[in-house]
Each structure stands twice: as C-alpha cells, then as structure tokens.
C-alpha cells in the first residue's frame, strides 16, 4: 500500500474555488508541492492568500462550498481526494493530524483534558480506558506539561493558552502520525508562550518522524521551524526553497518585499524607513492573465502581464515564479533610508501618578493596573510593551478617559484630567485622542468615511459650515493619503489599511497633542503595517504630537518609540530610552521578551526560557510579581520584598533586586554562553 519512497504529501496542480452566491471564486491556482517524510515545510503568505485552504485541503476538511476544480493530492502515495469517508476517518487522527490556531475553541470545553486525549488512543489504538489514560499522561509528559497527572483531570478552560496548545499537540501526536498539519499554531499566543511552543515543535521533530506542513503569516516563526518554505501569493506559489536560502537570497519580488516591510529588531524611525508594498492584494476570484504580483511589482514589464510565469529553478531546489529572478536582489528600497534625525523633545505633557485600575469580577477584584507612574514630554513617543494581561490597554483606557482609574491621577497639560472623557473639557478631548486596535470595530460600519471625518472635525476642531467642513476634510484625508474616492464609501468597502487610515485621520482631526495608539497595526498584514507605521511616524514628526504606542511586537515598538516602558502584571518594570531598554542590563522580563522573538536572523541566538504560565492578575504573586517565572530568581528576597527601582545614568530604570552592574554581567554571560 504505502510505497517506501513516496512523499508524505504530494500536491499536484491543485486548483480550488469557493462558491459564493452562485459564483465560483478561485482561491488556489495550479499549486504543486511535495513534502518528504520527516520534513517540515512552511507555507507563508498574508491573509487571503489561501494558505489555510491548502491546509484544509490536505486534511480534506474543506468547507461545503469549496470545489476542487482540478489537481490531485496524494498522501503517502495514496489518492487523498478520491479516498472514501471511511478511509479518511481511519487516516485522520491516525496517520494525519492537525493543530489549529485557537486551542481554546478546538478543545471540547465540557470534557476533561485527559478523556479527550485518551479518546484518541481508544479510537485509533483500540486501548481500554485505563490504558488509554496512562498513555495520555505519558504523552502530556512528552509535550512537556508540568504535572501531567493533575492536568489530565482539568477542563480546557482551567489551562493557559500555552498549555491548551500543548494538549492539542499531545492529541495530534498520540498516534504518531505521518503528517502533522499546523495552522498558525502560535498566532493567538503571547511572545514568550509562542517561543515555548516553537521550542516544543523543534524538540518533537527529533522524537517523532512526522512530516510537517506549517502554515503561518509570520516569516520568523516559519524560519525557526522549517527546512523548506513556500511563499503563497493570491493562491499561487510564487517562490519555494530551503528556508535559509529563501530568506537570505529571495528571488521573487514579493518575498523580498515581505522581508523588507517588517521592522527588524533594532530599527528605529530616526534612522530607517520601512518599505511598504504598494497596492493591495487582488480581490478574491480575480482572473489575472499575467503574473499575480505584477501590479505591485517594481520589476514588472509587458511580459509580466501576458502570461503567468512558471515556477522555475534558480539554483538547486530554489524555485521562483518570476521572469527576472536575477534582478530581484537589485531592487532598490522604496523609501530612502536615513530620514531626518530625532525631533526635539519639549515640555512635560502628560503625568500619570500612581495610577491603578481594578475591575470587579463577581466577589473578587482584578487589578489590571497596579500603581503606574509615567511622564511624557511634548513630541515624545512612549512605547508600551507587555504580554496580554499586563495592563497596557487598561492603562491607555484610563488615560483616554474611557474608564475612570480606581486610584492615582492623570495630569495633562498641567491640569488634572482624572475623569471620564465626557467630563473633560472640549480642549482636553481635542488634544488627547486614541487610535484603536481593530479598525473594523473602531469605525461605525453604517457611516460613510465622509460622515465619520466630518463629524469629528465638527466636534473636535469646531469646524462648522458645510463648505469649510468639506475643505478641511479633504485636507485631513490627504494628510493620511486617503483619496477622494475613498470618502463616499462605508468602511466595509475599504481594506484594513485604508480603514486604519480613516481611524488615524479621525483622531488627528483636532490637531491633538497626544494620541494613544493601542496596537494600531496588529490587525493588519505586515505589508500594510509598514505603510501605517510610516504614516504614524510622518504625522508625529510633522505635527509634533506625542504617542503612547502600545504593541506586543517589540520590533515595532523599538522602531517608533523614543522611550520604552515594559509592563508586567499591571506594573511598569522597565522604562527608559528605547536603545537602553533593549541593551544590557535590563529587567529579566525584558530579557526574556527579547529572546522570545522569532527573528529571521538565522544565526544561533541565546534563548531565555520562562517557565510556567503568566500568573492571574486576580491573585498576583507577592514580592516581585515576576518571581514565579524569573530566570534570575534570587530566593526569599524576590518572594517577599517589592523590588526597588534600579537606575543608571542614562535615565534607564528597572524594578529588580539585582543591581545594574551585577545584572549586566550575568546577562552578558548568558548571551555569550547559551548558543544553540
């Protein structure tokens, strides 16, 4: 049956369409790829490129309205598309398994974790319940869950996101499948947890001989795990090759653009400008005669628009669907590097003192922000980083006046504004605005862009009269590079990047002094993120505004911020000039966060591993809040005493019991010794 030499998965000329309202929209066109047994293949691309469709097709989990128009998928040499439901049932969970993006919804919330794993053994290995439970416990140990016996008896909601994803891996690996499909398995997780899960995948690859199809939008993640990578654009494979080669010497303009548009750690707005990809993804189901990327490609010429270029080898196993692969490395950067240097910082603008915010949850209190002191000057960009639950959004909402702090004060322009936005003066509201994370949510879907901008001009800038409003609105739209044609539509007709431009324009309508940016690019694709970051940096420089810029992405924060604050469980633990916070010595948590970023720098890097989940803010640890996970844990002193602020000459402060000189030495040693 199974041919020994057969590829684990062989996709041949696959074309898939979705039927929607009687129309067939093509999502995958003529896709061919093979994954050898034991190989990890990464499929990367932005949202809407069809990567999840491929993963679903390989599992034969495509939705009802998907039609496979042509092509074949062979699984270990056997025809997968023609397999009977009975055969598929035997294969799935037994010879092929999948791990999904959101473990919280993939696990059954009403069944104990142990039973869910044991069920796989009972179903596919014919084990009895007791035997299956033992096997489940052993498997939890394999996926490195601490205290497996206890976890077996837990319900999914009692586990952290990282633990849940480990349980998913345990279930997927239970039957030692030949193929493991991972669909964005780390996307919903925090950076330190993501790093743990990726470590796990790497380790599991040594113990299990499964072929892996790893689907992700994150190039860094893919480069860490996979040997070979395929880049998908608008349903077509545009480049494929060994991971290292692909990322160091891309030969398709799209791959190059993807690599260039994300800020790398260490890039700063003062020195570098990001390269956005012009234009946008072709709409779903568009029929394009030539190269799918030609409309956005700097190399495009007539030949590119005539026929889809075939996937041809550049060198060895490195394939590209570009007619001019030799010209790709020479593509110039879109924006000139080395833009104007730092803006001058002015007087104090914002002063947050001992700010705390507690939410009542039934009988208990969730302390989201636990005494934060902050200062911000005119023209300063403060970056706030931290994992989910660190309180950064709550802090921003208190400053914005969306919620009232439980304790502490917010002073803005020298006056006390520790009240809700409704009770602040019009002048304060005009000068203190916010840009939200998800533009879909932040723009009223029933209002046109014109109505949205006009209303905020009227209220914030006090512009009255139709003609004047219209004039100012066009001006405002132009400042965020929106075109007049974008004004008469509702947000749903705009792409994510354009929506965020509208939201940014709205917050800038009253010429603000401070704009709170709460993860303004995390709902966007990397190519769009670059354009939005460039816009925010330009606006900041031109208008001299200050930002509090919240993000979980350290490279992004490093890029835009002058000052960085790191938050952990409601407290600011590390704060100082951006460069200082990112260099030694810094708080052990900052150290861990930095080392958790999956980067494209493929060289060995030290990894600080955090153990255990993030403690609940309902019941934070005593002493230093980080002591339960700290890699530099000292002992009693950390458990019982609140750490003091340690300060160096450059204005960099962190909360830790370890003095700067000592910490710098220890951290330098770690960096030098723990080569992978």
């Amino acid at each position, binding site marked *: 049956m199974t041919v020994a030499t057969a590829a684990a998965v062989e996709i041949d000329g696959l074309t898939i369409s979705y039927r929607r*309202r009687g129309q067939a929209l093509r999502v995958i066109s003529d896709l061919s790829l093979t994954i050898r047994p034991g190989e990890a293949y990464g499929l990367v691309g932005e949202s809407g490129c069809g990567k999840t469709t491929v993963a679903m097709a390989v599992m034969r989990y495509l939705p009802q309205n998907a039609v496979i128009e042509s092509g074949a998928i062979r699984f270990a040499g056997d025809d997968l598309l023609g397999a009977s439901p009975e055969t598929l049932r035997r294969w799935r969970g037994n010879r092929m398994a999948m791990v999904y993006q959101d473990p919280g919804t993939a696990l059954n919330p009403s069944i104990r974790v142990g039973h869910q794993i044991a069920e796989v053994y009972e179903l596919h290995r014919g084990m009895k319940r007791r035997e299956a439970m033992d096997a489940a416990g052993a498997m939890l140990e394999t996926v490195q869950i601490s205290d497996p016996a206890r976890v077996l008896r837990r319900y999914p909601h009692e586990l952290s996101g990282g633990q849940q994803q480990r349980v998913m891996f345990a279930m997927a690996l239970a039957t030692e499948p030949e193929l493991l499909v991972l669909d964005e398995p780390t996307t919903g997780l925090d950076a330190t947890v993501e790093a743990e899960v990726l470590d796990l995948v790497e380790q599991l690859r040594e113990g299990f001989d499964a072929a892996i199809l790893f689907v992700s939008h994150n190039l860094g993640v893919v480069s860490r795990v996979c040997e070979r990578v395929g880049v998908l654009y608008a349903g077509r494979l545009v480049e494929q090759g060994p991971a290292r080669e692909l990322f160091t010497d891309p030969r398709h303009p799209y791959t190059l653009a993807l690599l260039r548009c994300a800020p790398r750690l260490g890039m700063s707005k003062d020195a570098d400008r990001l390269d956005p990809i012009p234009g946008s993804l072709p709409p779903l189901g568009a029929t394009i005669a030539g190269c799918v990327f030609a409309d956005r490609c700097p190399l495009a010429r007539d030949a590119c628009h005539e026929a889809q270029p075939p996937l041809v080898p550049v060198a060895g196993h490195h394939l590209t669907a570009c007619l001019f692969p030799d010209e790709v490395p020479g593509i110039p950067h879109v924006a000139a590097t080395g833009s104007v240097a730092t803006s001058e910082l002015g007087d104090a603008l914002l002063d947050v003192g001992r700010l705390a915010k507690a939410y009542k949850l039934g009988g208990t209190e969730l302390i989201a922000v636990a005494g934060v002191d902050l200062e911000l000057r005119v023209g300063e960009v403060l970056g706030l980083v931290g994992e989910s639950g660190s309180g950064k959004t709550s802090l921003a909402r208190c400053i*914005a*006046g*969306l919620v009232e702090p439980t304790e502490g004060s917010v002073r803005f322009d020298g006056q006390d504004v520790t009240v*809700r*936005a*409704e009770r602040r003066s*019009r002048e304060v*509201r005009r000068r203190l*605005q*916010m840009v*939200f*994370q*998800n533009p879909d*949510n*932040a*723009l*009223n*879907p*029933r*209002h046109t862009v014109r109505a949205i901008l006009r*209303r*905020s001009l009227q*209220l*914030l800038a006090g512009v009255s009269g139709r003609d004047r409003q219209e004039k100012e609105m066009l001006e405002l739209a132009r400042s965020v590079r929106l*075109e*007049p*044609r974008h004004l*008469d*539509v*509702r947000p749903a*007709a705009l792409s994510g990047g354009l929506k965020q431009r509208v*939201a940014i324009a*709205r*917050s800038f309508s*009253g010429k603000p002094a401070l704009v709170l940016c709460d993860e303004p690019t995390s709902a966007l694709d990397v190519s769009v993120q670059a354009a939005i970051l460039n816009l925010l940096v330009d606006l900041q420089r031109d208008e001299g505004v200050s930002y509090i810029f919240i993000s979980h992405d350290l490279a992004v924060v490093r890029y835009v911020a002058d000052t960085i604050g790191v938050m952990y469980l409601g407290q600011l633990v590390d704060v100082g000039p951006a460069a200082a916070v990112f260099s030694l010595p810094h708080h052990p948590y900052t150290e861990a966060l930095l080392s958790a970023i999956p980067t494209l720098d493929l060289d060995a890097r030290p990894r600080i591993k955090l153990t255990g989940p993030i403690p609940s803010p309902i019941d934070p640890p005593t002493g230093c809040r980080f002591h339960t996970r700290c890699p530099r844990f000292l002992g009693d002193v950390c458990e019982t005493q609140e750490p003091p602020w340690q300060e160096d000459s450059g204005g960099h402060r962190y909360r830790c019991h370890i003095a700067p000189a000592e910490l710098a030495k220890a951290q330098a040693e770690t960096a030098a010794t723990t080569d992978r």
Partner: protein
Amino acid sequence: MSATTADGVRVARRERRRELYRAILRSRTFLVGAGVVGFWVLDALLWRVIVPQDPQAITASETLKAPSTAHWFGTDNVGRDVFSRVLAGAAAVLTVAPLATLLGVTGGIAVGLVAGYYRGIVDDVVSRLIDALLSFPLIIIAVLVLASLGRDTRNVILVIAVIFIPIVGRTVRSAVLVEREREYVAAARLRGERGPYIMVAEILPNITGPILVETTIRLGYAIFTAATLSFFGLGLQPPSPDWGLTIASQRAFLQVAWWTVVFPALALATLVVGVNLLADGLRQVVEE
C-alpha cells in the same frame, strides 16, 4: 482612473444591496409568507370593491345556510354572507395589529437603548420593571386594562403596544449591550458625543437587523392578541365583521353550522402563519 474606481466602488455597493434583496427573494419561506400577507393586505384595502355581498346585509330567510354557489362560505345565524364577512374582517385586524406593533417597537427601542447603553442603575430599574411586567400572564393584563379603561379600538392598540414594549425592549437591550462595547462607541465618547446621539446615530443603525426581525415576530403576535381580545369581547363590538368577534359570536352554532366559525378561523390562521413565515425568512437572511 480615479473616477472609474469611485464608480466601481459605488457599483459594488449597489451590487451588494441588490444581492441582499436577491437573497431575501430567493428565500421560499419569505416568498410564501409575503404572498399570504400581501393577499390579506390587498383585501383589507379593497374589500369594499371585491365583496360579492354587503357583509352587514341581514337576510332573515337565509340563516345558517351551508356553503353553496350563492354563498361560497355559507351564511351565519342572521343570514349574512360569511365569505363577504371574512373578506371584510381583515381590515380591522390589519389596522389594530400594525399600529400596535409600531407603537410597541418604537417604545421598546427607546427603553432598550437607554437600559443597554447606560447600564448601571437605569438598567437595573428598567430591567426589573420589564421582569415584573412579563411575569403576569399578558392576556390578563390586557383584559383588566380594557375592562377598566373602556373597550374601544384605540385602547386595544395601546394595551398591545404597552405589552410589547418590555418584550421588544429586552431584545434591543441585548443587542445594544454587544454594540456598546465596540470601539466606534469609545471613539464617539472620546470626541465628546452625548448619550442620545451615540444611541440614535451610532448604535441604532447597527441593530436594525434584530429589530426588523423582532418587529415581524411581534406583528404575528399582535394579530393573534387582537383577535383574542375581540373574541373576549374586549375589542371591536358587533356588528363588526372582525374575525375574533365573529368566531366568538358564532361559536354557539358550531355544531350545526361549522362554516360560520371555521372560515374566519382559517382566515386568521393563514394571516398569522403568513406573518410568521415572513419573519422566519427575513431572520434567516439577516442572520445569514
């Protein structure tokens, strides 16, 4: 170039709206319901023209005659043509029910918006009032109110509307609770919008779907309630050809002349079922 894209966007939007209509029109449930309701609405408007005989004309010699070619649905106890009375009876119900629904939904929207948007004490008070009102059997409230206020059509409309306010209010409130957490509401607060503006201009346009569905469901209940009240003699008074009233006054003759009761009852049933089908079809499309 830019002009053509702008046109393209506008065309796309018109296209989407047309697709929504098309989806509604493709729903067989909706079409059947709309057909039935449409028939009765036309009848309510035009019955004076189409009735074969005067629905109030008493013919002493023709009492309780079985259906025949002269009287398709037979005659009642005083010799009136049942077919003509059924056709004429639609008008009463189709005046009372839509007006009551309109009033009830309007009131419910106001109550639901205020309770859902302001939360806190306002919400507590309004929600407890709603609970209290809903804990009574509704028909008993109606009977009591009509018995004390007087039994005219205006009071029937008011009573049904008042009963509907808490029911609609609850639906609206739960929709508002979801919407108020969305960030466009936060953005509106940050630019200094007042509560009423946020409720009406920001939130309301985004909850029209559930409101539309609730309205059609309420319409079905309004017809049903109006007929029940007439049956109890609390609505229209004889000699109105209203269906509920007819069923009540003729039910004594059910055993000897079933047609006097069955035809108005069937008419009522088709209308209620029609409205419900309409509501179902609409809900499926709105909820997709």
